[in-house]
């Protein structure tokens, strides 16, 4: 697939570009018709109908970077990827852009805001850029909420207020990065869909990071475990749905983990290690609303599991030509 030029990487959210959340562009790929069409997210209702089920991820994004100091006084930025109570697995980067990885020393203590300290206890064996940190002192989530900054990548402005990271239904705090496919949805749209017979239900998956800040490592698609919960209400809704539309690759990961068979999802919560590749055969998910991910991103593997490559390449080329914007503040793709 053709590379995405820098000018087509969304630097700011739609609301700061004079649009509504659901005013962004939507590319609709219909696999049965092998067609590609273009509309806006506000036009989603034209493609959904009674009996359809929209499954959203209601994880709330937390400001998941903390700036502190190392034992030698040097500055460090810590980005937790996996949080299990007081045990974090995190990357450590320089505090200034481009936030290059910073090698820590096992046994050293990092001083973080709010009286929090973190003992560097080791590395993740299969991904040594990820450090095991044991927190001492204050509660980690409390400190992140009080002192953390949102994770921002190089194409987005670090000045964007944290409120723009939330979906309109964000509830359960815990995601390091916005489950951004749903960022384009508005309650006006969702309530309209409900009135038209489309059911809306949530699951929770707390996202980790999508980058180690090392391009070579990122190219290997590192994917760590993420905590998720599929409740009985979601499971029952999937059971009776005509068609299940996952809003985002996080929902796909959660539902396919919880799938016990074709269109059978059991209520379950825990950690998912499921890696969805283009070879994966979907069991719980029929369709996908997603943000736009650059060629090479692991998210695109999940899209690739839903739609054949030639059709995806055609859609990608049309979106490039029409000036679509990529990444978490950009436009959307619906695969039916």
């Amino acid at each position: 697939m053709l590379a995405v030029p820098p000018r087509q990487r969304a630097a700011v959210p739609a609301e700061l570009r004079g649009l509504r959340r659901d005013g962004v562009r939507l590319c609709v790929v219909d696999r049965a018709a092998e067609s590609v069409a273009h509309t806006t997210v506000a036009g989603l209702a034209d493609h959904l109908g009674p009996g359809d089920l929209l499954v959203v991820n209601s994880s709330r994004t937390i400001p998941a970077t903390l700036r502190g100091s190392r034992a030698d006084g040097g500055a460090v930025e810590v980005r937790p990827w996996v949080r299990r109570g007081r045990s974090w697995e995190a990357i450590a980067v320089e505090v200034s852009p481009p936030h290059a990885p910073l090698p820590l020393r096992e046994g050293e203590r990092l001083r973080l805001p709010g009286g929090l300290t973190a003992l560097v206890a080791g590395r993740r064996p299969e991904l040594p850029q990820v450090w095991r940190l044991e927190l001492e002192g204050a509660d980690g989530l409390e400190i992140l909420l009080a002192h953390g900054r949102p994770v921002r990548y190089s194409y987005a402005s670090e000045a964007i207020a944290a409120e723009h990271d939330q979906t309109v239904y964000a509830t359960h705090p815990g995601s390091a990065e916005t489950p951004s496919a749903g960022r384009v949805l508005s309650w006006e749209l969702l309530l309209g869909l409900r009135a038209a017979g489309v059911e809306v239900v949530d699951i929770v998956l707390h996202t980790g990071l999508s980058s180690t800040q090392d391009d070579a490592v990122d190219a290997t698609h590192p994917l760590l475990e993420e905590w998720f919960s599929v409740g009985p209400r979601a499971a029952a809704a999937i059971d009776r749905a005509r068609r299940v539309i996952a809003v985002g690759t996080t929902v796909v990961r959660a539902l396919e983990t919880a799938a016990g068979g074709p269109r059978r999802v059991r209520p379950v919560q825990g950690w998912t290690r499921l890696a969805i590749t283009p070879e994966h055969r979907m069991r719980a998910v029929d369709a996908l609303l997603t943000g736009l991910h650059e060629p090479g991103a692991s998210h695109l593997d999940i899209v690739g599991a839903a739609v054949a490559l030639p059709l995806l390449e055609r859609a990608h080329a049309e979106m490039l030509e029409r000036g679509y914007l990529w990444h978490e503040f950009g436009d959307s793709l619906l695969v039916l």
Partner: protein
Amino acid sequence: MGSLDGQAALITGASRGLGRALALSFAREGAVLALCGRRIAPLEEVAAEVCAAGVRAVVISADLGVARDVERVAATALDHLGAVDILVNNASDLGTVPLAHLTDASSEALQRALDVNVLGPFRLTRAVIGGMLLRGRGLVVNITSDAAVEGYPGWGVYGASKAALEGLTRSWAAELEGSGVRVIAVDPGDMDTDMHRAADPDADPATLRRPGDVAESILRLVVTPQPATRLVAALP
């Protein structure tokens, strides 16, 4: 069995006055609580009283005029309670004390009142209402004042902010009709509270309502479905 068993409520301005009284009334009826206020010590005292009633409470010290604090309040409440079924936007700022006529008020005083009394409830409601809408049930109570609709000398800054809050309430209620989520505003009248004493030191306490009585009236509004005409309710 309490009338709020199994429900979770987030109350702002909960360390004293009406907020404290609401916390105690809601706790008696079985609601688990997140209590928010500026100062932690009085909040913890209220939480201790709440826990004595046999329910769980988390306290969150925050300034609702600060966006980051509002997000921390919402996230902490949602993390501890799992959901917020009832939000009471009770915290208020007079803008300036002693009260000043609008002709003499500073823009900083108006900004502060708008930050705490309008932006704070706007941000907090937006943060918790998504979960309510997903579940198809929930209630937001905005505490207002007759100063929102009447011109009282000295109350202009506060009154303007409460008028804005009532405007938000009307729009939310109209947009969410049929969703299962209610948004109402309640005017509690003049109460015997620290805030009222600060605004009107000469008021005769005997003429003022007791916060506990007002809290019981609001509790009745909370547990009883109200007709749309009670969108902005002045307590009898």
